[in-house]
């Protein structure tokens, strides 16, 4: 089968690739780009372990063809931490025990990033809803929700502090 040329920006880096049409975005990331942080939990869109941000929106990368993402912008877990510094969500996950086996963690972190960007002050219910596509079998979700909640509240305090600074 004929390969298709495509480009893809992943974590800020632009890639030019030739791929077979049936290659999933998930397999492209894991096998062609060696970005193995995104996991294959079911390959059917049922578990969320393969969650990436496609133009900022959380999606199951196992249900997207690589060619469908031509010209688009992808964020994977490897692109979350800054230079030598963890993202506040990653720090919070560590602080709150939100990580046990860690297999769902990359997908959950990305779903949480999208949530806080769209809803900076989510209720616990909204956090639960945002995570509804990410199955976790180890934690029971509570500490994950605590971690996201803590980051949201800290960001709210920070921003109101910043507002106070404005003369």
């Amino acid at each position, binding site marked *: 089968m004929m390969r298709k040329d495509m480009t893809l920006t992943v974590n800020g880096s632009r890639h030019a690739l030739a791929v077979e049409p049936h290659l999933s975005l998930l397999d492209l990331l*894991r096998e062609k780009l*060696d*970005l*193995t*942080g*995104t*996991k*294959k*939990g*079911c*390959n*059917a869109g*049922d*578990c969320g*372990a393969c969650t990436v941000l496609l133009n900022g929106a959380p999606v199951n990368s196992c249900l997207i063809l690589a060619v469908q993402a031509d010209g688009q912008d992808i964020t*994977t*877990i*490897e692109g*979350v*931490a800054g230079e030598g510094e*963890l993202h506040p969500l*990653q720090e919070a*996950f*560590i*602080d*709150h*025990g939100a*990580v*046990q*086996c*860690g*297999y*769902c*963690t*990359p997908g959950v*972190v990305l779903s949480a990033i999208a949530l806080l960007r769209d809803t900076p002050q989510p209720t616990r219910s909204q*956090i*639960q*809803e945002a*995570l*509804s*596509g*990410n*199955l*976790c*079998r*180890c*934690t*029971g*979700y*509570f*500490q*994950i*929700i605590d971690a996201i909640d803590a980051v949201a509240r800290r960001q709210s305090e920070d921003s109101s502090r910043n507002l106070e600074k404005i003369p």
Partner: protein
Amino acid sequence: MSDLSIIGKGVHRVDARGKVTGHTRYASDMRLPGMHYGKIVFSSHPRARLLEIDCRAAESMPGVKKVITARDLPGSNRYGYGVAHRPVLVAVGEETRYVGDAVAMIVAESEELASLAASAVVVRYEVLAPLTSPREAMQAGAYRVHQEAEGNRCCQREFACGDVDAGFRNVDVVVEQTYVTPRQEQAFLETEAGVAYEDDAGVLHVMSCLQDPYGVAEDIHLALAIPKSLIHVKGTPVGGGFGGKLNTTIQVHLAAMACLAKVPVMLELDREESFDFHAKRHPVEIRLRLGAGRDGTIHALDGEVIADVGPYSGRSAEVVGLAMSALLGPYRIANVRTRADGIYTNNLDSGAFRGFGAPQAAIARECLLDKLARTLEMDPLQLRQKNFLRPGDRPASPMLGESPVSIELLTQRVLALLGPKPAAPENSTKRIGRSICFDMPVFDVGEIPVLGKAGVGAAVQVHSDGGVTVYAGGTELGQGIATVVAQVAAEQFGLPMEQIRVEMSDSWICPRAGRTSASRLTFGLGNAVLEATARLRETLLAQAAKLLEVAAEHLTFEDSRICLVGQPQKGLAFAEVAEVCSDRGGNLREEGWFRGTGDRYMYGHTFMAAAADVEVDIATGEMQILKLVNVLDMGKMLNPVMAYGQLYGGAIQAMGYGLMENMVTVDGRSKTPSFAQYMIPTAMDLPLQFVAEAVETPYPTGPFGAKGIGEAALNCTTPTLFNAIADALGVEVTEMPVGQEQILAAIHKQDVQ
């Protein structure tokens, strides 16, 4: 005990950073030069005779390195825990026993090519009628899943004390019920996977997600006749186990692929294969009978367990034994007769899953206790209080020893955390129900003279720069054992966590530690590390004493220094002492070997209370858990953040088991082969409130008083939900799992009657 600086604190996990950044390499993330890909051809039928396998088409496909059938295998082609009767590949002329039996294997250059070749293997079967229930398998004339197992009995356990028949004659009330529990799937997010290769020296290296590197090495040796000293098994960070990766899963197949194809091989099961393949929670039928006096004293208990073992023995004898003994729970009952049978069928395989038989028993026990309470018109908690074990009591089972009975404390705490029962809204179809249940979870304390449980070793190395490495053979499943052993070492040496490295789950590098199961590793490895570090402390103190010209007993480890007690400025850096010790030929690597001191087969035990307030809408069958409370006696929490994580995770698994999880099989085939059909709780399914609390009654021989807790967290939450629903409805829901349909059906049946 003096102030602890790291033990008892919620310090960060040693593996958290790798996991939150996506850098941790799990089994399927590994990449080796020249790596090929394996694919297993599984049986198309639960039970069929293999007439012919034609691999010619598959062998001639591009990129196919090797096609393997039973004929190609060296060794016995048999392995397995319990009885070594599991085939690697079913041979022509033999019968398959379940849909997870393998008939052929492919090694190819890519996963796609391997899958393609697998589909091209042509297999002719004589399809035979599978045994689909224990009752069917027990009938006279039923075919034998294993020739040597008469009546398809895999195992049988019995226990009796007192005189049960007399006991039942002297009671005022008898209640009896049969409980049928569903098949629960571990549903770990990471499927079975691994890589294997043979090196130039002929050593086979297997890196895979597993819970017992030593058992895996044993099975590879048994099945493929590879000398044990040439097998190296390394457990990778596991993406969830819960017992489903306790038995050898794909590692023997993977080893065969690597050895026969003579290339490094990666094998990864897809989700449907995984759901079919590994052993799950035993579905059981428990018939339980209780006899009590009018005052609520239970005089007699009679129980029978029939467990669906599936095709192979595996862990069944142990699970079935524990299901039977857990029927007693934390209660003192003078006259007991219990019996449990594990029966082979051609259904999916059954084996280890967090709780190991105790969750099933808890359902029967705690639900029947509530039924007894209703019959006696007695408050269910009062009924239990009448019968609880008292301080100083030893439980009836000879398998259990001394353990402080903390039930009264648990009761106080659970009532305090529950608060008053909420009132149902006026003029509504909503009803409130409450239940409080109890359990007596067990954990391994190194007193079982059985392969893989009898001793736990660990090694600790102090490096010349003051860094420390702990070599611990248990596997990190997510439960946090790597962090716990690091904490113990850090505490012992007065070092920060950053200075401790952990090397886990390596059958060559780590002293034998046995299996990651039975909630045993904190206990066993913790004690082994304490022993190893105790010897190292002596060595380092002796060296420091010489350097400081003081007596060793005046020195202590504090803040990365070895210094005079109460005078931290008078001392030396830990690193400095380590360097000198190393330079002067001191031994800075010690091993600890923990073994229970008794001569009796024994488990440790602890106590747990679970409570729930639920709101049921009797018009629609909707059920909401308003509040869930779990109080567990943990002995000593070595890391509260991780310990609570076990409680939360276990409770939600228990909730799933009760409300939505059932791996249904029809004629031996799964009807729920994906995460879309086998449903585990999502983040939206949580109780409105969940309060978990640990109580700490130190266990005398536990490290810092710790008990094993990983499984305890799951056991009694499920019956708590069932009983709370029954309390709300005024009628029991007898079909599990319990969803809206089941609740409506129970209400409807009651209305119709």
